[in-house]
Structure formats: C-alpha cells, structure tokens
C-alpha cells in the first residue's frame, strides 16, 4: 500500500531527488554519536507543543476575566483536557531542558566550527525563542504565581539601558501587568514566536541536512590520512533510533502528566499582597538569582541594569562563539572554549540550585 502510494506520487512529482537523498544520507558512527539524538528529541517536543497548544487554543480565552476560568474548565470539564494541559506544561519544561542539553553538547563537541557557524547561530536564536515561549506561556493561566513572576520578569526587561522603559511598556501594554499584558503575551505565544520559530527551525534543519552531522575534533584527529569514518544509513537505521528516543520521551511525558499534574494555583489578584517565594520558572532561576546578588549600585552604576547589560553581552558572545573560536575552526582542540562551556554549565547548575533554595 505504502509502496503503491509512493509510486503514484513518484509518477506525478518525480521523487527521485528525495529518494536519492534518503538512500545516500548517512550518519557518522563514533563514541559521541549519542549526542546527535538530543536535537531530534527537542524537535519532537516542539511538535508535541504545537499539537497540544493547538488543542488548548480551542478552549483558552485570553482575557484577565476568563483566562484562569478557561484553563480550569480545560482541566476539569473537557474530556482529557487535564492530560493535554499537563503534557503541554511538562513538555515545555522538558523541551527547554533538552534544548539546553543540545546546546551544551554542541558547545562541548565544537560542532559549531566552520562550516556550521550559521547552524549554531540559528540554534542559539532558537534557544532564546524557546525561553521566550516559556516566559510568555507562563502568564497565560493567569494565576497568582505567574502574575507576580511576570511582574518581576518584565521589570527586569525594564532595566535594559535606553530602551528598557519602552520595552517594559511594550511587553506589559502599559505601566503595570494587566489584562493588556495577557493579550500581548498570548499574541506573542501563539502567533509571533511560532511564526519566527517555524522559519528558523526550517532553516536550522536545512543547514543540518545540507552539511550533515559534525564529527568531533578528537575523532577527526584520530583518523589516518585518507581514512573515512564509518557511517550508518540515515534511513532506516538512524531514524529508527530517533523514533525510539521519541517514544521514551512520550513515556516520560505521560508519566509526569499523570503522576505530577501541573498545578493551576489561585487566580491572579492584582490587588493581593505579593505571596512569599515568588520566583521565575527554573530556567530563569540562575539569571534571577544573579541579579538578586548584584549590589544595588556598582561603581556608581545601577546594579540591576549592569546585570542585564552583562547578560546581554553573554548572549551576544554566545552567538559569536563560532567566529571567536579560531582554533576549532582550524580543526584544532580548543581548551579555552571547553573551559568556558564547563564554567557556563557549572554556573547555571549552581545558581539554579541557589536560586531554588534562596528565600
């Protein structure tokens, strides 16, 4: 049946290019190849997010008066609504976790080196977009925690020099977090970010397909002149492994959704006293805690503003890594950038833990 369908399509569309690509495409075999699966798993979770997000859209109402109630309706009255909402929430967190893991694996393996600079740049922007999805989606249930965390988060955006106040007003739709902020975050979450993400994911995948999988420098250096690394066929050998990983992700997601339902909390009340222990989602904790630790004034400059500028510079540095790491682009080992990756990972882990336990 499948063969007949393909033949039918081939007759009309000439699929020989695609068939040739699928038959010829190979994936290098080496000890580090396990890291290749992280990108596929992240992409799979993005698909889960889109699917569950579309289902949630059927019932969600983006207004301060109805948002909370509509989510409550989804999880309590809609058939399997609880499952869809729980999967969407858990999948969002797993997606960001896997995106970070993918980012660090590429960083450590120096897969960003020439000629894959643009793949890295598109990937870094995608990572930031995922954080944007997390930040905008967090407010949508309009509960107490998300309301006050958004207040703090958008306040930090307001500390950006020169454009800070403008950014804060654009994000909030005014001076404070209100129903207008919810509408904006909704628009950002379901239209603007998905549109940009779709284009960038397509570009990212195009780059990966055009250039093939990167081979770690250490593996390359061990090859004798003229020797080629063994490859496995992408189809079906590699794709089956990818599907296996996706199934494991589904199992983890389903278990989390059923055993650890994502709490809805209390409806946001702008006039309520700020509840204790307000903190952002785990993936912003390190940044948040760092900003908390910076003194209010450093060398006469406002501490928070300095911190925000610092994080901006780190983001720019990350985008520019392939262009700065000259050694790896020459195919040489690059211990300085490995040390930076270790320091970055260590910082994120330590400060996330500190931020979690901070009062």
């Amino acid at each position, binding site marked *: 049946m499948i063969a007949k369908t393909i033949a039918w399509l081939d007759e009309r569309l000439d699929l020989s290019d695609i068939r040739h690509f699928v038959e010829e495409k190979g994936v290098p075999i080496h000890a580090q190849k396990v890291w290749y699966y992280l990108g596929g798993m992240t992409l799979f979770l993005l698909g889960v997010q889109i699917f569950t997000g579309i289902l949630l859209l059927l019932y969600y109402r983006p207004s301060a008066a109805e948002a909370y109630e509509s989510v409550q309706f989804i999880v309590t009255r809609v058939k399997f609504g609880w499952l869809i909402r729980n999967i969407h929430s858990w999948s969002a967190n797993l997606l960001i976790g896997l995106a970070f893991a993918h980012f660090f694996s590429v960083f450590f393996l120096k897969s960003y080196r020439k000629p894959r600079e643009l793949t890295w740049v598109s990937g870094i922007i995608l990572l930031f977009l995922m954080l944007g999805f997390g930040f905008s989606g967090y407010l949508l249930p309009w509960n107490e925690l998300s309301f006050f965390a958004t207040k703090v988060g958008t306040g930090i955006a307001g500390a950006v020099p020169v454009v800070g106040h403008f950014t804060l007003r654009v994000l909030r739709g005014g001076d404070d977090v209100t129903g207008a902020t919810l509408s904006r975050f909704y628009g950002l979450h379901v239209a603007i970010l998905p549109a940009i993400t779709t284009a960038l994911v397509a570009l990212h995948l195009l780059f990966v397909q055009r250039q093939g999988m990167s081979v770690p420098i250490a593996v390359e250096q061990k090859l004798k002149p003229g020797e080629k690394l063994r490859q496995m066929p992408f189809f079906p050998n590699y794709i089956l492994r990818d599907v296996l990983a996706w199934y494991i992700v589904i199992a983890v997601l*389903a278990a989390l959704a059923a055993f650890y339902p994502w709490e809805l909390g209390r409806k946001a009340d702008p006039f309520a006293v700020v509840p204790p222990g307000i903190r952002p989602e785990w993936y912003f904790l390190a940044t948040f805690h760092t900003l908390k630790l910076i003194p209010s004034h450093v060398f006469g400059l406002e501490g928070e503003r300095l911190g925000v500028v610092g994080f901006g510079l780190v983001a720019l540095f990350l985008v520019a890594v392939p262009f700065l790491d000259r050694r790896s682009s020459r195919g040489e080992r690059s211990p300085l950038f490995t040390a930076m990756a270790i320091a970055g990972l260590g910082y994120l882990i330590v400060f996330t833990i500190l931020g979690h336990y901070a009062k």
Partner: protein
Amino acid sequence: MRTVWLFAALLVAAVPVRAQSAGQNSCLTCHSTQTDKRLSTPTQLFTQTDIHRENGFACVDCHGGNAAESDKARSHDAARGFRGKPAGQQQIAACARCHGDAELMKRYAPKQRVDQATEYATSVHGKRLATGDGNVATCASCHGAHGVRRVSDAKSPVFPTNVANTCAVCHASPVHMKDYKKADGSPLPTTQLADYQKSVHFRALTKGNDLSAPTCNDCHGNHGAAPPGVGAVAKVCGTCHTIFAQKFEKSVHNELFEKGCVECHSNHAILKPSDDMLGTSGHGICATCHTAGDKNDKGTLGADRMRADIDALKAGIETSSALIERVKNAGIEVSDQELALREASTKLTLARTEMHAFVPEQLDPIVADGAKIVAAAQRAGQDGEAELKYRRTGLAVSLAAILFVVVALAVKIKSLG
C-alpha cells in the same frame, strides 16, 4: 480650690481668640536663643510641624502676653494676659477656649468634636485633677504642647499605633503610678502595655496594619478615659464583637461572671481565641470553675460536649479540604465541593459564636448541618480519587504499549546492525 481653678478657666475663656497674623514674634526671637533647653525647645518644636502654627496661631494665643514687645517685662506683661506655662485646669481651659468653641472650630476642623473638656471632666484624669492632683494627664500629656500634630498624622503620639506607648509613659511607670490604687485598695498595675503587646489586638494593629483594631482609648475612652466598670466590660467588647456579646448577655454566665468577657479572655493580654479554650480538659478554661470529669456537673458535661462537637466538625472540614485540594490539583472538578466546604466553615464559625450562649443544644443543629456538608464533600473527594486511580491505570496500560513499541524498535535496530 476647685472654685479658684474654675474662675481662672473662665477668665482665660473670656479672652477673645483670633489667629494672629505672622508679624513680629519676639517670643520666638528671644526663646530660640535661650541656652536653657526648657525655654528654647518649645520654639524649635513650634516652628517645625505644628498644626496650630500652620493655622496661623502664635505663642500668645495660648500663653498670652505681647509678641510685639522685645522687652521681657513688657512682653510678659500680666496686664496683656500673660500667663506663662498653663498647667492643670488652666491648660484644659486654654485648649478648650478654641476646642470647645463650636463656631471657631467650624473654621478649622468642622468635623471635630468640641466636648473634649466636658468629657475630660468625667475621666479619672479629670476627676483627680479637680481634686488637685497635678500628676495626672492633661491635654499636652498626650497630644504634646508644641509640635502638635493632627491625630491622623502617623507621627502624632495619639495616632492609633502610638496610643499605647503614649499612655504607657505614665501607666507603665511604677514610680509615676506608685500612689494610685484600685477601688479595692490594691496597687494599680503597670503591666498593661506589656500585656497589651501580647494581645491579638496589638498584633492586628501593628502587624496587620489594621488601624481599626482596638488600642487603649477604644475600650477606656480617650478624653473621658476610665476603666470600664464591673458589668460594662461585655458592652465595651460588644462594641465590636456584637453577636458574641448578644449571646453572652442571654447566657447563664452573664449573671455569674463579674468581669464579663475578661473572665475567659483576659483584658489587656487578649490572646487569639482557640477551640482549646473550651472544655475542662487540656487547656480548657472552663476547668477554672468546673471540675474535669465530674459527671454530675452540668457545666462540665455541656462544655466538654460543645468542645467535642466543634472539634469533630473542624476535623471533618480539615480532612475533606485536604482531600478536595489534592484531587483539585490533580485536575478533578471540585468547585462545588469547595463552595460547600466554605459553607461548612461558616457553620463552624456559627457554632463557635453560638457557644457563647453556653447552651449545648443550640449548637447541635448547626454542627449537624456542617457535618452533612462535610460528608457530601468527602464522598465527592473519594469519587475524585477513584477517577485519578482510573487515569493512572490508563497511563499504566499506555506505558506498557509504549514499552512494547520501544522493545520492538530496539530489536529491529539490532537486526539492522
């Protein structure tokens, strides 16, 4: 002596009052340069924040004399009404000259009462002053003499959060209070502030920022300050705790409790009431009069029964609330049950209120209604748990299917090499 003071007060009152325009004020010029702090401090305070100065009043409006004269003798001329530092009844009269004048006060504070002096005369302070006791509080003792602020000013010594400390200046001083006795001849205690600071009222006022929470003057009166007499305590408490007072008034204890509410709740150190206070066991204060375990004492039986009823309803609400919260967070619809449990909590509050009538039979229907609601919520919660179990079973089946596919894929991958 009283006649002399009254005459002096009338004399002062007879002097017409006007807010002097800001012209030459030799009082400030001279007093501000005095090395004796007693003479210079008033000018400092008066020229900073002072409601009277802000409204155009000057030193001579209270002290008399002539501010236009720079010579001490001429400015302090008794013929120009100079009376120095008004004290005792003279001070009351000096303040009342304006604050007792309804016509005048309309121009400055139309909503302010003008009977402070009359009230003061009925207070313990006023009565003792009339007998010649110069040690008691007069207007300036609480409001200050110079640098007087509006009562609504948070820095005013009579702002609600400051009242207790202002009263305590005298009432917490064993030296100041040593000559004062209660009606029965026992010494007047000086622990009121320390006791009050332990109370639920103090916490509400200072920690809960509830300015309507009572402080000294809310129970004792301010200008007419006096301890509530025997039999009046329930009425004083009932000003805010209306329903409790109504229940208590009809109860058997109304006749028996000399100090009314104070018998169980204390006066200044009123702690947050708890259910533990009821009954004869544990911390139950009914045991003060009723013997624990005495099956022939109707009071013991009634108190213990009411306690058991309230405890049972409270425990039921707690258990059901925890169950409902658990299933709610797991995604089960329980908003109706949440509403019902709020109704059960209202019944618990009603039972706690009704208890002040000390008739166990009156509690029964209230507690029974509450228990019915709790039982329904409990059933709904258990249904919710069953639904959760069903979901988890469904998940286990799904996981088994996924695991099967994973194993099949692994086998296939292995076969491909």
